[in-house]
């Protein structure tokens, strides 16, 4: 059986990749995908913990996260479409009007 540490390492790597994607990519859609990767990295660690501890709690939380992620993706993509219609671009660095 694969030990818990391995799952956590994979989860950590996925989370780091997702974080890097959020900060480094210049396309809003890619940023959203990176957020999905981060969420799934967390899901992975939940399930790994749940299996190790022999409970279903981890899986239950995972389902919640998946549900929220689906909703988030729907809203996020709708925003992306709206933004694109206004700015003809998907580069987040151009959307800087959210300030004083």
């Amino acid at each position, binding site marked *: 059986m694969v030990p818990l540490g391995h799952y956590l390492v994979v989860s950590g790597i996925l989370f780091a990749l997702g*974080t890097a994607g959020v900060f480094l990519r210049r396309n809003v859609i890619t940023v959203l995908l990176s957020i999905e990767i981060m969420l799934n990295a967390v899901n992975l660690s939940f399930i790994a913990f749940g299996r190790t501890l022999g409970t279903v709690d981890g899986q239950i939380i995972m389902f919640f996260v998946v549900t929220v992620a689906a909703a988030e993706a729907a809203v996020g993509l709708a925003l992306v479409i709206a933004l694109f219609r206004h700015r003809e671009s998907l580069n987040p660095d151009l*959307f800087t009007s*959210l300030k*004083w």
Partner: protein
Amino acid sequence: MLVLIPLLPFVGFLINALVGRRLSKRVSGAVACVAMFGAFLVSAGVVWSLLQMPSGDRGVVQHVFTWFVSGEFEAPFTLRLDPLGAIMVLVVSGIGFLIHVYSTAYMHEETDAEFARYFSYLNLFAAFMLVLVLGANFPVMFVGWEGVGLCSYLLIGFWFTKTSAADAGKKAFIVNRIGDFGFLLGMFLVWTTFGSLDFQIVAHRAGQMPVEIGFGVISLATLLLFVGATGKSAQIPLYVWLPDAMEGPTPVSALIHAATMVTAGVYMIGRNAVLFGLAPDTLAIVAGVGVATALMAGTIGLVQNDIKRVLAYSTVSQLGLMFVAMGVGAFAAGIFHLYTHAFFKALLFLGSGAVIHALAGEQDIRKMGGLKHELPITYWTFLIGSLAIAGVPLLSGFFSKDEILWKTFSGGHTVVWFVAAVASLLTAIYMFRLVILTFHGDRRASATSPADAGHGHAAAGGHHHVGEGSHLHDAPAPMAFALIVLAIGSVLAGYIGVPAALGGSNHIEHFLDPSFAAPGLAEAGEGGHHDHGAELTLMAVSSGAAFAGIGIAVYFFLRNRSLSDRLATRFAGVHRLLLHKYYVDEFYDAAVVQPIRSVSERGLWRVVDAGIVDGAVNGAGLVVSGWGAILRRLQTGSLRAYALSILVGAVVILGYFVWR
């Protein structure tokens, strides 16, 4: 029953204040007069029941409600009528009523709304004055005390569009505040010393104390109370407001600034006679201030040219005499003079009002003269008032003034007696100068025909066209009524106090005495058998002085006018000094008003207000906006920067929990 006395005028005030502008003059005047007459009737009824009680134990008390309680301090709204209060209540409501009646004619030129405003103030004044007189403890008296001050301010400034009237009102109010401050401090000291503010309880506890030797706490308390009295009763150093108060309508001067309000200080000392009796030092100061005021105001009165101002200085001078009586411990004599003075001084003011009314607002006696035949009612009543105030024998002023002088002399205050006698000689001179310049001789100005004036016509009936071609009207009926009643009063009022030396029994003194003694300790306050011979001699001296004064006035101003003018130029310095009222106003202006003004402007305004207060407020704003300018750099609008700050925050919090 007692509460009705102040309540009736107060209801009159409410009616005229709330709906007065919609009422006709006839109705609003009637409301005010009826309210006053009602108060007078109730007062007379209560005083009658008071007279039925055994002497020495006369008193009617009514507890109206508990005003406020704080810890062990309790201020009940209690009214009490005792012999002293009885005299005051009758004077205030009776003379007040006459002056209300007089006013209905005098103020007839005003519009309906102004007329109602005038009567609402006048009624409010009467209500407060009656509260002052009936209050059974210091706080209630203070309510009346402040209330009459307010009404005095309102009525002096009744014609507030005139700058001088508005200024005079402010001056009266501010000067009175100084006195009121002393009164308040005195009241606090009485509370801490005696543990009560009820007059009877204070008098009772004070009555068990020995007379204070040296200047102690009672002397201080009474002195502070006396400071209050100098403000309200226009004594040195706070008398300066009263002559200026003549800017108000003349009936107001008669009611407030001659007969009633200004005597409140005298009344207050009488009310606390037991307390003052314990403080000989204070009494000496009271007598000294009184006699100095009497002399000073008397000399100023000699040269003033405004008919009302002469009377104002005369009032100040007579009040000084009352304080002399208080200061030598002759409380009954002081109150007696207060009572007779109310008659003849109200009469004189109302008479001067009738003259002013007839001459369309002219007040300068240099432009009068020869009015004797044209204004007969005014002339004769005015003459009676002048004779009474001068102290001509068998008129009211003679009895009361002589009582004061005799008590002063027999008390051993020879110097005070001499100065007071000189002051009463001056009284006779300036009063008859006024009579002669106003009514005798020839008219010195003919430009004052009422046809082209705003104030002359009296619409009410009772016109007396004396002399063909004359356009002057004598006092109309309501004014004549008040003048005649007061003239009768000025003659007869003194007969309740005929001294024993003249075969009388001085009823008023025996009536009043219980009010000045500590309750329960009422002793036979009779001074024993005094020497009637000496008293008669003094009487002869002072009546001689009265006749001498009249004679001097007649000689200088009627027989030999040029002599008085020559005297004035010969002693130009003295004349100018008197004409400018000893430059006291100028001195106060330089010593008090201007320093306060410059401190306020340079210190309080420029430094404290503009510098410190505004600085603090603006500084708070500057600090906030400064920090805002710095902190807004964080709001870049860059999505990445926000995400980074969320990440850093999450890492820091996690790090804290991990490495804790």
